[in-house]
């Protein structure tokens, strides 16, 4: 009962005018970021961190979460109208969405995306609320060894499941951990890997890395593609409404998409992209007319678009209740929490219930706003697609630079950001996924801390990591994930027809 009143109290936070305003700003920016190719939610959130320094943490986090789930709405627009998914989680939408647009049903495709996103997102938040309280009760019993194994599992899963090569995923994870060890060791005060550069004493700021990898690196990729041909933009045809028949066909996919999306979203490593792939294949398998898929079947838009929004709600579950994110974007969100000196996890539900439930409940409001932004007003956002990329990309570069400079007023960080931009470009080219890198970077410090604490408790005996049922369970799952992926790679490497998945 007490938990329920805390949840309801959260509304008094999220309905404050100032927080409503920041919810609006967040979801608006999320939609814009989703629509614009070249800048994704991870970079968008990272760029907001320096800008929101002086803000009250609750409002700032409400805004950044808005960017995160808002981007899933906007992502469908480019998939449907120009066959160019803005985010990897909109790749599946492009298959049938673009075909619908070709047949003059772009309006219906956008409408079903918006409605599916709204339903999936909202039910996802309810499920998130229901799961959060019992999960935090369990998580309160976690000690350093449990936390270490949990983070190891999250990293293993993300490394193994993003990208086509688990070896490259693991490599990315190790690079992220390496970057995390640069700077002053917090427990002994020793400098590590500073290489005589004074700016490195405080470590490499995670905003620098994320903006470099995601914003600057993405701009380089986009510049390269800029000189290749571009698909034509379909005009928004047809009313943004569904016929009765289309509604009837969409309800099932929306319902299943919600369940698939939310459950997959909770799991580390899987995330929104895999949820969309699973939803799409589920709909195709269940359909009486699987041959229509790829030709403009509305089910192929409704299911995945619902699933990716339900997955964002699901991904908030481990982030908020355990403090361990399971994807690149939520890792950036965790970074934002930490910047404000707030550690998500079970204790936060006790110490700052106003913040937690204010944030969660703001997502209901945000989803309503997104529905309005994406149905009647989508025409405005579509115009963004007509901005020449030759103008847009330089502007993104300046925004990234200003954002980085605003953090510490330090030019060295700008050069570092450029370096990570080049790395981000190169990693995309050679197929090294970025999500494990970012997650490892954010978790690295906490992981080392819990590792050393656990070893101190056990007097240096590593058996502590397999001493309880929970740690053994986590270890077994990690090994299983690796083993399954490993055997797949060994057995059918040539079968690379699967969707090129995704950084986030």
């Amino acid at each position, binding site marked *: 009962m007490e938990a329920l009143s805390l949840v309801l109290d959260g509304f008094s936070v999220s309905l404050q005018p100032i927080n409503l305003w920041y919810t609006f700003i967040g979801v608006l920016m999320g939609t814009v970021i989703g629509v614009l190719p070249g800048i994704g939610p991870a970079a968008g959130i990272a760029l907001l961190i320096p800008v929101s320094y002086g803000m009250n943490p609750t409002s700032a986090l409400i805004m950044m979460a808005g960017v995160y789930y808002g981007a899933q709405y906007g992502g469908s627009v480019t998939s449907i109208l120009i066959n160019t998914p803005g985010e990897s989680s909109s790749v599946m939408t492009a298959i049938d969405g673009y075909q619908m647009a070709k047949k003059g049903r772009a309006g219906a495709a956008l409408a079903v995306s918006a409605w599916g996103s709204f339903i999936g997102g909202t039910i996802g938040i309810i499920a998130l609320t229901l799961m959060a309280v019992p999960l935090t009760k369990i998580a309160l019993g976690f000690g350093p060894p449990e936390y270490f194994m949990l983070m190891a599992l999250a990293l293993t899963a993300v490394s193994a499941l993003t990208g086509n090569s688990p070896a490259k995923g693991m490599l990315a994870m190790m690079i992220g951990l390496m970057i995390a060890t640069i700077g002053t060791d917090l427990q002994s005060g020793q400098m590590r890997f500073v290489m005589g550069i004074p700016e490195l004493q405080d470590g490499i700021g995670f905003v620098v890395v994320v903006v470099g990898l995601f914003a600057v690196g993405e701009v*380089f990729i986009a510049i390269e593609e800029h000189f290749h041909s571009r698909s034509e933009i379909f005009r928004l045809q047809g009313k943004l409404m569904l016929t009765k028949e289309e509604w009837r066909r969409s309800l099932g996919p929306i319902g299943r998409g919600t369940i698939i999306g939310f459950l997959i979203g909770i799991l580390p490593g899987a995330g929104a992209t895999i949820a969309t792939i699973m939803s799409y294949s589920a709909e195709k398998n269940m359909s009486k007319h699987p041959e229509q898929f790829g030709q403009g079947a509305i089910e192929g838009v409704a299911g995945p678009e619902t699933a990716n929004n339900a997955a964002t709600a699901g991904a908030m579950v481990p982030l908020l209740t355990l403090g361990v994110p399971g994807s690149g974007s939520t890792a950036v969100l965790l970074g934002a929490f930490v910047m404000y000196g707030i550690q998500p996890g079970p204790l936060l539900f006790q110490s700052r219930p106003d913040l937690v439930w204010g944030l969660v409940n703001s997502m209901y409001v945000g989803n309503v706003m997104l529905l309005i932004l994406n149905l009647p007003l989508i025409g405005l956002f579509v115009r963004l697609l007509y901005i020449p990329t030759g*103008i847009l990309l330089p502007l993104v570069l300046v925004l990234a630079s*200003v954002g980085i400079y605003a953090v510490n007023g330090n*030019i060295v960080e700008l050069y570092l950001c450029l370096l990570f931009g080049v790395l981000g470009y190169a990693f995309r080219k050679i197929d090294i996924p970025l999500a494990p890198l970012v997650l490892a970077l954010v978790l690295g410090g906490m992981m080392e801390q819990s590792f*050393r604490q656990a070893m101190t408790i056990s007097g240096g005996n590593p058996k502590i990591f397999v001493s309880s049922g929970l740690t053994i369970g986590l270890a077994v799952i990690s090994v299983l994930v690796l083993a399954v992926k490993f055997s797949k790679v060994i057995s059918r490497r040539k079968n690379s027809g699967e969707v090129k998945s995704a950084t986030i």
Partner: protein
Amino acid sequence: MIDRMILFVTLIVAAFYFYGTSQIPTLEIGDPLGPKAFPYLIGIGLLISAGWLMLETVRAKKAPQAEPADSTSQDHSHLVLLSAIVAWIGIYFAVFEHLGFLLSTPIFLFVLMMYLNRGKWLANGLTSVIFTVAAYTLFSKVLGVSLAKGILPF
């Protein structure tokens, strides 16, 4: 080919990382593990991923024509272009504090736009100036973030 390069670079990085770890001074205070243990673990992890990558590469070679060799046969003119852009960004950063945000940014933007968005003098010029002024106003006046002033008095 590319995988072999990655492998090579990984091994070099691992060697440097191990060397760097061995250079961390340790004192007999603090926790028993000290600041070296975790980096050593990461170094070992790096070697394991290199080994795994090697295994994948070998397997891929056995599978007939697993990866189409499109990336290597492409022409590399875009790399020259991107290097030029990276250099231009580097120059922008180098003069950023000396010239100040308000002077360096429009120049940076205009040149880059003239390259990427050819022939649109007016649109590019206007966007460069208006965007700079808007960003400056937003950051230094509204958000209170100080941007480099440079040689301008405001």
